[in-house]
Structures are given as structure tokens and as C-alpha cells.
């Protein structure tokens, strides 16, 4: 079936799939692009005039910094590089469908991997703020009977995030593939704008926003105490 993920090569028993290879390509593009656009930042003096590219890069980085700082508060500033990386990766990963590359986010392994990191960040922040005993005690609040529900609520967070992103991207991909089969020339243009551009950016934003909100909720509890 066309939607199955191809194995590109094998490292012994380990299959290297299309998702992993496409992620590597995105990583190379992002890292090499970053190295190129930040060349002048490493050599320029503080009073030097910057070029247009540098100003745009600065605007993006500063904008991300302000946005994440405002959403997560003062204590969330340390998460700015990770959240920014996540947002940039998701935007590029969701948009690569436009150039005919299979989006890595159209694979549950990717979205669940990202959600796992978010889950670890949430729980790590919780444990750090309340201490291990306080963290465990949190599952029995407001009363002990709530423990199963609290546990399910915590565990379901990464799954809901992972499936939301995966479902949206794979859904868009399936619809686009079907459209190409039915009307291959002019018709797919507008759906491309919606499913790849609009939906891709929105889903990247939602995933990042949820990560910020969940992590900052754990930090806020820390601040309250």
C-alpha cells in the first residue's frame, strides 16, 4: 500500500525507514541553514550593521524568544531553545509534503517520540517542583479515589498529542493522495494550501503550544509553592 513506510536500508537488524532518512534531511537543512545564516553573528561586533538575512533571523529568534517567554513565564525561559527547535522542526516537517517528500510527522513513531520528550519534560518539571513524594501525592488529589483517573490523565497526554498531530498530517496526506488519483492536475492546488500549508503550520503550532502549556503548568505549581 502506498501509505506504508518504506525501509530505505538496514543497519544489521535495525531498519532505517523513510521517516528517519527524511528527518535527517530536515536536520541537515536546518543545521546547515543555521550555520550559514548565523556566520556574521559570530564575527560581527555589537555595533556593526547587519544584513537583511541577519535581521530576519534575529527577528525570528527574538520573536520566538518573546512568544515562548510570554507564554511560559520567567521560569520557562530555559525551555526556549527546545521549544523553538520543536516548532521549527514541526513547521518544516509538516511542510515537506509540498515538495513531494513524505512528512516525518506522518509516522506515529515521530509524533509519539516528540510527545514522549514532552511527557518527560512535564513529569520532570512536576518532580522537580514538588519533590518525588509530593509528585506521587499529586495523583491522589483531591481525594485518593481519583488516583486512576489522574494516572490515566497523565499517561493519555502524550498519546493525545501524538495522535492529534499524526492524524492530521496522515489524514491530509491520504486526502491529497486520493485527490491526485482522481484529479491530478489543477484541482489539488487549493487542498495543498489547506492540508499542507495551513493545517501543517496550525498543527505544528498546536503541538508546540500544548507542550508549553503543560510544562508551564508544572512550573506554575512550583511558583505557587
Amino acid at each position: 500500500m502506498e501509505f506504508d513506510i518504506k525501509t530505505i536500508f538496514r543497519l544489521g537488524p535495525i531498519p532505517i525507514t523513510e521517516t528517519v532518512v527524511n528527518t535527517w534531511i530536515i536536520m541537515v537543512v536546518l543545521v546547515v541553514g543555521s550555520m550559514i545564516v548565523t556566520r556574521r553573528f559570530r564575527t560581527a561586533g555589537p555595533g556593526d550593521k547587519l544584513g537583511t538575512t541577519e535581521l530576519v533571523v534575529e527577528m525570528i529568534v527574538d520573536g520566538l524568544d518573546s512568544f515562548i517567554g510570554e507564554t511560559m513565564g520567567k521560569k520557562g525561559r530555559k525551555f526556549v531553545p527546545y521549544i523553538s527547535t520543536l516548532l521549527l522542526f514541526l513547521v518544516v516537517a509538516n511542510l515537506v509534503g509540498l515538495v513531494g517528500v513524505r512528512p516525518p510527522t506522518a509516522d506515529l513513531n515521530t509524533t509519539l517520540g516528540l510527545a514522549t520528550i514532552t511527557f518527560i519534560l512535564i513529569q520532570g518539571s512536576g518532580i522537580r517542583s514538588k519533590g518525588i513524594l509530593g509528585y506521587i501525592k499529586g495523583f491522589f488529589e483531591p481525594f485518593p479515589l481519583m488516583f486512576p483517573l489522574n494516572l490515566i490523565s497523565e499517561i493519555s497526554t502524550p498519546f493525545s498529542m501524538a495522535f492529534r498531530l499524526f492524524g492530521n498530517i496522515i489524514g491530509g496526506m491520504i486526502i491529497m493522495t486520493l485527490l491526485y488519483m482522481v484529479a491530478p492536475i489543477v484541482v489539488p492546488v487549493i487542498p495543498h494550501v489547506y492540508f499542507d500549508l495551513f493545517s501543517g503550520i496550525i498543527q505544528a503550532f498546536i503541538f508546540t503550544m500544548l507542550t508549553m502549556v503543560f510544562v508551564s503548568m508544572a512550573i506554575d505549581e512550583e511558583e505557587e509553592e
Partner: protein
Amino acid sequence: MIELGWTYFFQIANILILYFLMRRYLFGPVTNFIEKRREYTEGLIEEANSSFAKAKELQAQAEAELTEARRQAQASVEQAVEHGKAMSEEITDRARREEAARLERAQREIEEAKVRAIHEVRQEVANLSVQIAERIVEQSLDVDAHMHLIEDALQRMDDGHVN
């Protein structure tokens, strides 16, 4: 499509590697640059503020000096006016004194001239009187005795006793 496998672990590793690389090559340099420029700008602002404060201080100093100079100039003008007034009074006084002395001298001269004139007139009158008397009595009298009589008569006339 929805089965989990090695890819899951690869993707976690990929994202973490990407995070470190992006921090190293994008967010680090740009944030450092922004921070460096912020410090540089703050330094410039601080420098401008200190220059401004210094300028204010200099301006206050200059204004104080100007006020002092004005005060000194005013004092000099007042002193000059006082001096001028004193000089004017002195000159006026001197002129007044000189004038008075001149007047006094003139009066004295007039007085002397008057006395001299009176004396001369008196002498003339005496001579005339002698001549008249000679003519009347056709007799020569002793001039000295005659003169004495006339002097006496004139003296009495001066005293207001006319016989």
C-alpha cells in the same frame, strides 16, 4: 504506518541531536549577539547619560560664572558712577569756590577803585575849593592851613554834618 519500532527511538534521538545542534548553531550565536548588542547599547546610553549630566554640570557652572561676571560688572558700573558723581561734585565745588574767590577779588578791587576815586575826587574838590576861595577872597592863604581846613570840612561832610 501506526506500528511502533526502532524508528521511535531514532526519532527521539534525532530530535535531541537537532536540539543540541540548533542551540549550538542558531539560538546560541543569535542570542549571544542580541545580548552583546543589548550590553553595548546600554553602555552607550549610560555614556550618553553621563555626558548629559556632565554637560548639565558645566552649564550650571557657566551660568554661575556668568552671574558672577554680571554682578562684578554691575559693581564696577556702580563704582564708576559713584566715582563720577564724586568727581562732578568736587569739580562743581572747586568751580564754586573759584567763582566766589573771583567775585570777592572783584568786589575788593571795586572797593579799592571806589576808595581811590573818592580820594581823587576829594583831592580835586579840595583843589577846586582852594582855587575858588582864593578867587573869592583874592588872598593867598597858607596852602597847608587851607588844605587842613578843607579836609576838615570834607570830613564833616562825610560824617553827615554839613555846615
